[in-house]
């Protein structure tokens, strides 16, 4: 068990650096995976409104913008699910090992 007063010794240990690097890489990709499609959507609404207003297939009343909006909401929610899955497994295991004092 790591004593709270010895907390700073963890910073440069291999186990902690592994946790930080893996989580950072994952979080950066998930954040970009949320923000890039979202701002592409916002810019499409501003600069290419006709693109969003095209019918999804001939004879349909539904236009592309609607399923895209649904996909953004459902898709980014799935990303939060992916995060949880990896955090509950891999990241929590790494953290538990660090807290228990296994710092290699």
């Amino acid at each position, binding site marked *: 068990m790591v004593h709270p007063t010895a907390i700073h010794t963890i910073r440069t240990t291999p186990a902690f650096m592994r946790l930080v690097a893996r989580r950072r890489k994952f979080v950066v990709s998930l954040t970009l995976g949320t*923000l890039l499609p979202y701002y592409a959507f916002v810019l499409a609404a501003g600069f290419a409104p006709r693109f969003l207003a095209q019918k999804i297939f001939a004879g349909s009343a539904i236009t592309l913008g609607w399923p895209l909006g649904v996909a953004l909401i459902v898709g980014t929610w799935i990303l939060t699910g992916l995060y*949880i899955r990896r955090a509950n497994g891999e990241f929590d295991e790494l953290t538990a090992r660090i807290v228990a004092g296994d710092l290699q």
Partner: protein
Amino acid sequence: MTRFARFFAALLALFALCGGRTAFAMPEAAGSVHRQPLNTTAIAMFVVFVIATLGITYWSASKTRTMKDFYNAGGGISGFQNGLALAGDYMSAAALLGLTSMIFFNGYDGMIYAVSFFVAWPLLMFLFAERIRNLGQVTIADIASYRLDQQRVRTLMAFGSLTVVCLYLVAQMVGAGQLIQLLFGLRYEYAVVVVGLLMAVYVTFGGMVATTWVQIIKAVLMLFGATLLAVLALRHFGFSLNDMFAQAIAVHHSGAAIMLPSKLVADPFAMLSLSVALVFGTSGLPHILMRFFTVPDAKAARKSVFVATGFIGYFFLLVTLLGMAAIVIVGRDGGFYEGGVPGGKLIGGGNMPVMHLAKAMGGDLVLGFLSAVAFATILAVVAGLTMAGTSAISHDLYAMVIRKNRADPKTEKRVSRIASLAIAGVAVVLGILFKEQNIAFLVSLTYSVAASVNFPILALAIYWKGLTTRGALLGGVAGLVSAVGLVVLSPAVWVKVLGHATPIFPYDYPAIVSMSIAFFFTWVGSVTDQGARAARERAQFDDQFIRGQTGIGASGAASH
């Protein structure tokens, strides 16, 4: 025994007020333009909700022994419960009424808004939820002042939170007054006083436990009401979305143009600035962020965001569907228009499409239910806001800044009670003063201040080693001044409130500018800060970083 007595005194006062209210409400119908006939179904359902929540408040009071119980329910709320409560906090009456109304009038624009309100949640999950849980205990100021100056940075954050809370509260109060006179046929002032009294009772007696359960119940009711209405509406179209869309295009006076992103995004920069305010402002709302302290650990914090995000996304999707259904069902029915001609002025005003839809689909019963849900929604949101404001006063300003973490718990409890009553009082007074005002600017101001003061300092405190006290103070003040200043110069205030011909600043949401200013000044103030204190603050980043990552040293749950 005294708690029991005080609780019932408050309860009696409330019912005395409710009883007196109906007697006054009827004869003054001529006084307001939009007031509707007294809606007894809605009032009956709402009274059931109020009695249930007061029962919960009484039960919560018995669980609220320490100040920790009061502020964060002792960290004993489960991830799933907190997820529902977060959703209850975020699914506002404005979202239900405003978004459906936007689709009803402008079509596809409402979907762009819905997505923009939603996207903040995945980001909260990836960047904030776990760090906030690991680094703080009661307020977001705990996190900002973790390694910075307790006195000054905490004071700044407390005032940042209080500003956001007050602005948001006034907007909610004015909305509540208007909505309730619309839906229930009650007088504006009574509605505002009832809301103020109830929120003070929830928070003063039940603290975070009661607030949480009010939000959970409201979230369930809201999700149930929206689902029911969506199923009824879809049945009307034989469960064919294509049929619904085709009819909407046929009925709407804009025709196929309702599928085009229009007014809202006429200026892409304005849309971009709005989206920055919504996305990053949400990450700076104190009443949302403080909910992360109610769960036992980071694992529960992340689960709560996952649950909240799912429910909020589901709700927004339902809302867009309801808006499209309203175009057809309400748009064709002359009975919902003044003068009986479809396409004219909607009875009750522009926010009513979803309520008219409820009436058309399910008669007075469904209309009454949805009205009661809308009222319950306002109560849940204002209770959360009051809780956040109270913690900023009694925990941040009193216990930590004035008493320097040596406050006597009894006195602190008394301060918290006075604070919640004072906040409720201020909200009622301002709500009544702002009755006739155009309050659209309050919402943009709330999100802009949250995105320009709370968010930058919080984000940099968590992620940037170089942040120092001087940088945080400089950036926070710059963000506050520029957000408020630019909103005053924007069309919403300069033109619509102050009556000038043209705005000095062209965008209603200045967040993209004021947030950049805040980040810039925080950076300048920090990198030029070479004192011994700054060096110490940077040196302490590693400890904070480790705790944020692993939760070592973070407090756990109290056993309930």
